[in-house]
């Protein structure tokens, strides 16, 4: 046989052998001899939920090693924020986790507030809670739709997006933008709820639980769904904690850890809600946790609407950090000065560091903020749940079939914008 030697540069295998060298230590020895197969999945792959690349080592259909490769959506948001004043950075944070923009806004604003010691009025906190829970519904609906599509249930997607459209209409009512609202500001929210917003939300909350029943009727007891999700992608609670898994994925493993309950922020301690917990830590439990979380979110929002005072400040009145309303500008010279200072220079924050974490729909979203003493941060770093979840994929996928890999990637609810930032 006229086999070419590896030294021959025309040999396409020569290049391949070179790249195998780089994988030494990452895949098993069997892959280097060609006994197992190396398969590249992504970054353009329909079920990787964005631009995730997985390098898989397969023994037949069984996944032995999974090496995720990320960075295909690395946007440099953290670096960009370093060149902006504190308030101007809010719109950039939206675009990290584009399914939960309000959560990102809030994490960032809470960090800024902690850094400069700014108090948020109670009414604004309740308004934030309403927005955060709407965001949770929004994110879980997209997750449910896409996860169901991945596993072959097409119609759930259409139903989920029908309800999501209603939420987007409300976001648009609040902020003028469907997805990237940038509604949160350091010290509160951008503006008061428009008068037609709360009736629309109440109406939505009235029928939404029955819509969740519809999704459950399609999936929860569906034998195909149960076969494909139960016992798949199990992660034990100890391992989940060690790998930094958080949010619904951690709760699916049976750890009742929800930052809204355990370490409340933004007035979540005022509300009465349950933290749904799974038992087995498989794909099905993570699905059930999210479904029940949607119902809990509805409860929180209904309580929040009741508690929301009809009148009151929606933003702090500390004029060193919060620009005065337009009406004040005509009457007060001081207001004009504050307005000018805040919009040209911004406010200064001390040369200190803070870390704030909130419960985003995906898990623990942390914001590390380090001031310079001037009007721009020295460093912002977002610890994002998707990042941790993708890093734990090798643990979850080990020994599973390649068809189940799709279910596992979907079940931890990764958003690559959130992961790569």
């Amino acid at each position, binding site marked *: 046989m006229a086999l070419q030697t590896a030294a021959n540069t025309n040999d396409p295998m020569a290049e391949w052998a070179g790249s195998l060298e780089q994988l030494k*230590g*990452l895949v098993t020895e069997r892959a280097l001899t060609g006994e197992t197969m190396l398969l590249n999945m992504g970054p353009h792959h329909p079920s990787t939920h964005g631009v995730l690349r997985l390098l898989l080592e397969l023994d037949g259909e069984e996944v032995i090693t999974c090496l995720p490769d*990320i*960075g295909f959506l*690395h946007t*440099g948001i*953290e*670096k*960009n924020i*370093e*060149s902006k004043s504190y308030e101007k950075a809010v719109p950039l944070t939206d675009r990290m986790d584009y399914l939960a923009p309000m959560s990102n806004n809030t994490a960032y604003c809470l960090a800024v507030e*902690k*850094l400069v*010691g700014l108090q948020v009025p109670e009414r604004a906190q309740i308004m934030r809670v309403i927005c955060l829970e709407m965001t949770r519904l929004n994110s879980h609906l997209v997750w449910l739709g896409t996860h169901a599509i991945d596993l072959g249930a097409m119609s759930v997607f259409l139903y989920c997006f029908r309800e999501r459209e209603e939420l987007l209409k409300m976001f648009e009512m609040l902020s003028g933008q469907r997805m990237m609202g940038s509604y949160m500001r350091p010290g509160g929210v951008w503006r008061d709820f428009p008068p037609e917003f709360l009736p629309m939300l109440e109406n939505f909350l009235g029928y939404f639980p029955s819509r969740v029943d519809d999704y459950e009727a399609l999936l929860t007891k569906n034998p195909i769904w149960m076969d494909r999700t139960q016992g798949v992608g199990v992660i034990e609670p100890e391992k989940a*904690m*060690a*790998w*930094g*898994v958080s949010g619904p994925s951690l709760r699916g493993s049976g*750890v009742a*850890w929800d930052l809204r309950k*355990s*370490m409340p922020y933004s007035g979540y301690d005022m509300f009465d809600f349950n933290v749904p917990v799974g038992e087995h830590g498989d794909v099905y439990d993570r699905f059930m946790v999210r479904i029940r979380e949607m119902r809990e979110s509805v409860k929180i929002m209904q309580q929040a609407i009741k508690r929301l005072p009809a009148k009151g400040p929606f933003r702090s009145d500390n004029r060193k950090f919060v620009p005065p309303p337009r009406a004040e500008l005509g009457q007060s010279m001081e207001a004009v000065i504050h307005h000018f200072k805040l919009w040209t220079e911004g406010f200064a924050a*001390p040369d*200190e*560091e*803070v*870390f704030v*974490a909130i419960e985003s729909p995906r898990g*623990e979203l*942390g914001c*590390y903020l*380090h001031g310079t003493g001037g009007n721009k941060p*020295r*460093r912002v*770093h977002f*610890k994002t749940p998707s*990042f*941790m979840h*993708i*890093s*734990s994929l090798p643990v979850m996928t080990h020994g599973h079939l390649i068809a189940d890999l799709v279910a596992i990637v979907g079940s931890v609810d990764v958003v690559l914008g959130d992961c*790569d930032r």
Partner: protein
Amino acid sequence: MIIPQALDPVTALKQAMPDAVEDVREYGGDITIVVKPDHLQAVSQYLRDTSGLVYNFLSDVSAVDYYPDYNRPGRFGVSYHILSLLYKRRLRVKVYLPEEAPSVATVTTIWPGANWLEREIADMMGIDFVGHPDLRRLLMPDDWQGHPHRRDYPLGYETVMFSFNADEIMKHKPHATD
């Protein structure tokens, strides 16, 4: 389940490892313990395994660059934000690293989740984590030059297009048409 009495992390650590602690600071309710880089692994092990502390969850590892005129012990600071799920409290362990060849021992042996967080810092800040299992670039392409999140790395933006520099910018866009 009987939960042991919670210990104050600062006094406990100062008692157990007096050499390791360099400084303790508090700001906005966050406690920061600055430790010597050589002791980081031992301190992490102690904080995780001591009953009464049990910092069993690594929330975040963040690096900050104090370039250019730093009034800190070193140019780089690496902050480990750890969380105790049992006592519901956070702690920041911080090390300062020098400008020349910054390196610190990895904590992946203690919290496996540190794997990618440290890899990201190695990629974006150029800090070496000794003993890390797989320190390839994470976010940037393999052949990228430099470490983008350092303060001396330019943001690298494209200038705004006016008529005088339109030709220069359009050189980058060979496929752009009217």
